[in-house]
Structures are given as C-alpha cells and as structure tokens.
C-alpha cells in the first residue's frame, strides 16, 4: 500500500434486476485517503517532488494548491501523511464543510477569489512569489493538468487488470470503461494505464460530463479544444473552463465516446445509488454511475448492444463535496426551476410577481 494512496477494490455491482444487462464492475475510489481518486495523482506529484527536493537537501518543500474541492483536499491529505507544510487558497464559494475538512488536515487555508482562476492567481502572485526562495522549494499542485498527476492516476488501471485476473474475468469481455471528465486528468491517467497494457486501442472509454460544463463534448464536436466562458452545471468537481490538451489529443487518437447528462438526472442517480449502496456520492461521481442505471445511453455511446456476457468497468471517482442534504436541496431547486420554465402564461395582464406566485403554487 503506497503511503499516499490506497489500492481500491474493483467489485461487481448489480444495479437493476434483469437478465439481459451487461455486468458492471465498480472501482471504488471513494476509499482513497482524501475520498477521491485525486489522492493517486496528486499524492504522486507531491511525493515525487518532495523526495527530489529532500534529496538535494538545501531547501524545504512546501506544497501550494488552489482548489477548494477534492484536489485541494487531496493535496492537504497527502501533506498530512508526508508531514509536509501545505497552503491551500480556496475561492469564496467553497462550502464551509470543505474548508473545515482541509483545515482539519493541518493545512493553512486562505479564502480568496470569486472562483478557482482568481484563487489560483492570488496563490501565485500574492503567496508563492512572497516565499523565501533560499529556504523553501515550492511544490505547486494544479488540480489536474500535470503529467505526474496523470501518471499517479494511471495506477488505477494496473489494479483493475490485477483484480480482473484474480476474479477470472477475461480482458476480452471488457467492452468499455466509463469515467467522468472534468479537466481530463482522470481520463488521461486511464489512457496512459491502458497504453501500458496495449489496451488503449482495444477498450473504448466513455467520458461522461454534465450539461453546463461539457467542454470535452463541445471540443470533440468542434474538432478543436474549446474554452467555456461560464460553468452552469452543479457538478462543481467537473467544472473547469477547458480540458487539458492531452485529453483532446487522446480522445481523437483512441476514438473516445462522449456523453452529456443533465444535472437533475445525475442527482437522482446519486440519491438512488445512496439507497442501494450506503455511499454518498457527489454529482461528478454520479455522472459515471448514471450509465449503469441507463444502459441505453451506454449502448448508444458505444454503438453496440451489450449482453449479459459483456463487462463494463465504471470508475466511481469518489469526492466529498456534497452531503445528502446538499443533494436533496439541489434536486428540489432544479425541479422547481424546470417546472417554472415549463409553465406558459396566456393571460399577460398578470404582473411578474403574480405569475411567479402562481407558478410556485402549482408545484
């Protein structure tokens, strides 16, 4: 067991009782020290960098991160394990619960910026450039865009191959791997792992995003990397303005499939999944699991019907950003918004306020 990440199980899970569905195996990344797969890649980056710095010996390592989400928490958790100082700048919108979680690891948390980009700029321009470079060697942790992070994530694939072997599941039965795509860090790691086993051309990946941060899908449709101006999905862990260049490159090379799902559907899946597994998942994780509850979407993406003999691997990426209460509150709000959009008004003499009241009453 590595110091900074855990080997996690790949276990068969039955989502629906039917004879004709493919077999789903779930990779339980929620069991990482920080609750998400990010412990692999970010742990790898920090461990390798710190080891290198300590080998040289004249400076002390200090880790800097700018995510108030699972990446920041993964960095802070790895630093706690490795006994390294850690500073995390988080944007103002970060949930108090996540701020507390990151603080509890011993990291120094600074709240600054309206969103990630601003927090990141503040980190680089007002924190990192003020350190004493004679004494401290900084380790900057980007949430996803770093080859050492992808290398760390790729250990997922080695474990899955080993697990399938020990469970006597032939690799030829694997018809796809489903994973969520935010910036593409996890995806890049999976591709690199598959390449290592000469499987990148044999096992297609289905990359899932939520509508409102579907940068991957849009980039593939436009046939070039696209940047989103605004993120409008509630799946904040997937919410980045652009994917890494490597992600786009891999997707074209290996004909990766892209699926976009609605926020409201994903949250319902999260809550259904909690009922059937006792696990609380955030929307970013629910997005991948959603395809296990809706094999028609999966089959359409893969361009083939799946039988009970076929095996699909789903990366349950984990993540701690939502409690059940958060999910339920968000679901109510989304349903309200959806209903409000659907009610037409013929009588236009009503004021906006009256219309709003009538709409709410009809819910």
């Amino acid at each position, binding site marked *: *067991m590595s110091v900074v990440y*855990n*080997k*996690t*199980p790949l*276990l*068969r899970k*039955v989502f629906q*009782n039917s004879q004709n569905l493919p077999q789903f195996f779930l990779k*339980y990344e*929620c*069991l990482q*020290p920080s*609750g998400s797969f990010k412990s692999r890649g970010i742990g790898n980056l920090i461990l390798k960098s710190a080891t290198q710095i300590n080998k040289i010996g004249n400076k002390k390592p200090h880790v800097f991160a700018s995510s108030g989400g699972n990446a920041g928490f993964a960095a802070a958790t790895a630093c*706690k394990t490795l006994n390294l100082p850690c500073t995390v700048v988080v944007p103002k919108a970060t949930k108090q*619960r996540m701020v507390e979680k990151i603080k*509890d690891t011993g990291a120094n948390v600074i709240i600054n910026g309206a969103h990630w980009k601003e927090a990141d700029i503040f980190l680089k321009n007002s924190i990192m450039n003020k350190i004493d470079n004679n004494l401290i060697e900084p380790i900057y942790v980007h949430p996803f865009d770093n080859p050492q992070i992808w290398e760390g994530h790729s250990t997922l694939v080695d474990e899955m191959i080993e697990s399938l072997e020990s*469970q*006597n599941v032939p690799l030829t039965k694997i018809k796809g791997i489903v994973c969520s795509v935010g910036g593409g860090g996890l995806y890049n790691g999976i591709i690199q792992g598959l390449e290592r086993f000469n499987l990148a051309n044999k096992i297609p990946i289905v990359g899932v995003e939520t509508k409102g941060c579907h940068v991957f899908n849009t980039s593939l449709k436009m046939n070039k990397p696209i940047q989103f101006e605004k993120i409008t999905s509630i799946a904040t862990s997937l919410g980045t303005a652009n994917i890494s260049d490597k992600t786009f490159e891999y997707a074209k090379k290996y004909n990766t499939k892209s699926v976009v799902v609605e926020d409201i559907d994903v949250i319902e899946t999260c809550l259904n999944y*909690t*009922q059937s*597994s*006792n*696990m*609380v*998942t955030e929307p970013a994780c629910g997005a991948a699991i959603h395809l296990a509850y809706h094999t028609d979407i999966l089959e359409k993406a893969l361009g083939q019907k799946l039988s009970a003999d076929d095996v699909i691997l789903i990366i349950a990426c*984990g993540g*701690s950003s939502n*409690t*059940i209460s958060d999910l339920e509150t968000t679901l109510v709000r989304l349903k309200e918004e959806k209903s409000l959009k659907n009610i037409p008004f013929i009588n236009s003499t009503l004021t906006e306020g009256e219309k709003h009241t009538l709409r709410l009453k009809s819910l």
Partner: protein
Amino acid sequence: MTNQTNEIPVYNKTPLIREFLSTDPDSPQTYVKYETLQPGRSFKSRGIGTLIRSRVIETRRSGNKSIHVFSSSGGNAGYAAAVTCSRLSLPCTVVVPLTTKTHMVKKIRDVGAEVIVIGEHWKEADSHLTNEVIGKIDKEKTEAIYVHPFNDPTIWEGHSTIVDEIVESLNNDQVDISRVKGIVCSIGGGGLYNGIMTGLCRHNLADKIPVIAVETIGTDALSRSLKQDKMVTLDKITSIASSLGSVYVTQETFEFARKYATKSITLTDDEVLKTSLKYTDFSNYITEPACAAAIHLGFYPEITEKALGHRLDKDDIIIIIACGGSTCTYKDLETMATKS
C-alpha cells in the same frame, strides 16, 4: 451445475484501509475492514453465502431434489440470504415480523425473494416459517435450506475468511502482525465474533491479538454474561441498534470470550448514533448503529486503551471490523438523532 455454483462468488474480498479517525497524533493506527462492500452489504454475505452454497453442493451431490432457501430475518441476514439466492438462481422465502422496516421488505423483494410479513416479533415470524411454511413443503421433492441469522458453525466458518484476508493484506503491505494490538467488532448474537475467533485460531493468533467486543446498552448479552460468569438471556432488546438485537449470544461466543480474555465494551445509543452521523460526514459511507458501535472506538482510542488495560502508541495498530449493514437510511439516523 455444481461447477457453476462453485464459481459464482457469494462474497467479496474487501479492503483493509487505514483511516485517520482520531485527531490525536499519538493515537494508534486504525485500519478499517470494509464489509459494507459485500453483495448483501454486510459481512453476513460471507457466512450466509458460504452456508447456502455448501448446502446446495451437498444436496446436488446426493440427488435431484429441488432447493428452496428459507430465512426469518428482516434485517441484514435475510437480505444476505436473498442476495446469495439471486446470485445462485435459487428460490428464497423470507418470513419477517410486522416490525420490519418497509424499505428492507422492498429491498429483499427487489432481489427476487418472496417476503411474507407476519408476527409481532422475530420469534413469531420464525415459528410461522418453521411450522407453516417449511413444515408444509414436500420434503421428498424439495430440500429446505434454513438460514439462521448467526447460530451455525458453517456461518462462522464463512465469516472467518475476514481474518485470512486481514493477514494477507498486512503481509502484502509488509506490516508486521505483532504491531496489531487489538481487533474491534460489534456483537449481536456473536456470529461475527465466532468467525473472527475461528480465523484467529486458524492463524495461531487467538492468544496474541485480543478482541474488543462492542455492544450497546440494551443489547449487552455478552457483557452481562461475562460479568455474571454464566450465559445470560436478556428479557428484551432496548437499543436502537436493531442489528445487534439478539437476546442471547451463542454458547461458543461465551466460551471463546472466557478462554481468550476478550474485552467487553458497552456504549450508549446516543454515543453510537453520534458516531454514525460523524462517520458519514468523514467517509461518505452511511453506517447503521451496529456498525458505528465498532467504528466509535476509532474516534475514541482511549476507550480501546482502557479496555486493553494499557496505553497504545502510534506504531500500534487497531483493526476495526466495519461490519456494514443497510437497515438504516440517512433519514432514519437523523430521525433517531432528533428523538434522542
């Protein structure tokens, strides 16, 4: 047919994960065995899965009778039996008392088992099962496999695989077993505990690694039995940890506990409920009170130290069996917390 039955897994190998539950930097290291990842969502899949499969193989070896599995648990045992039967394509009937939660009845039905709801409490449901259901089948044609929730040596044998896996995990990670200073597990009827003791004996560790057996006040049959130095049967269950709600522990549990100086701890419902909610926030896993009872000692290592009678340092390891269980939704936990 026999080959297929042999090949289909009825339980999963689960991970042993280090968790930093205590904020005290000098606290012992806690490793959690994640039994919630079983097909039936609790460790019961091991023992009950093993029991059903071995009886099926036996039956098929000796003739052509059809098989029907029976259980009288509306809890994790009944669900484990139903899930096992779903995997092995066997008919399953579960008779449950009227007190059984609706969502458990639905869950058990959803995996294909027949559920009959009858009786004020478990004993009545079990009587109905034995006399009116099993008693009425044609024994020439059908082999009835009755699954007790815990009191069966084959079940304990199945549960004992937990220890094989723990030893393997520690060896794989090059962790010296002599660092393990205790194993914490919850006690209901003692089935899990018997399995752990069987496994420890198999590895010659029963004398070396003490077990800390946790109950709640109101399900504390073992604690009272040990205090009175004789088997005690409770009048009734008065704790919310319904999965621990057996009025007695098995004879073997009592004997193991005396022979191997098992430490006995009792916690209040309040303590356990708080831990359930805290652990959900910490790990994103919803645990029922029976499971939280063991995890509680991870948050409060001083309780473990008191039970063992000595301090533990940060190189010592305590293994907690997170037994799993799906009888409580998060809403159930919140409702119980509001009432207390």
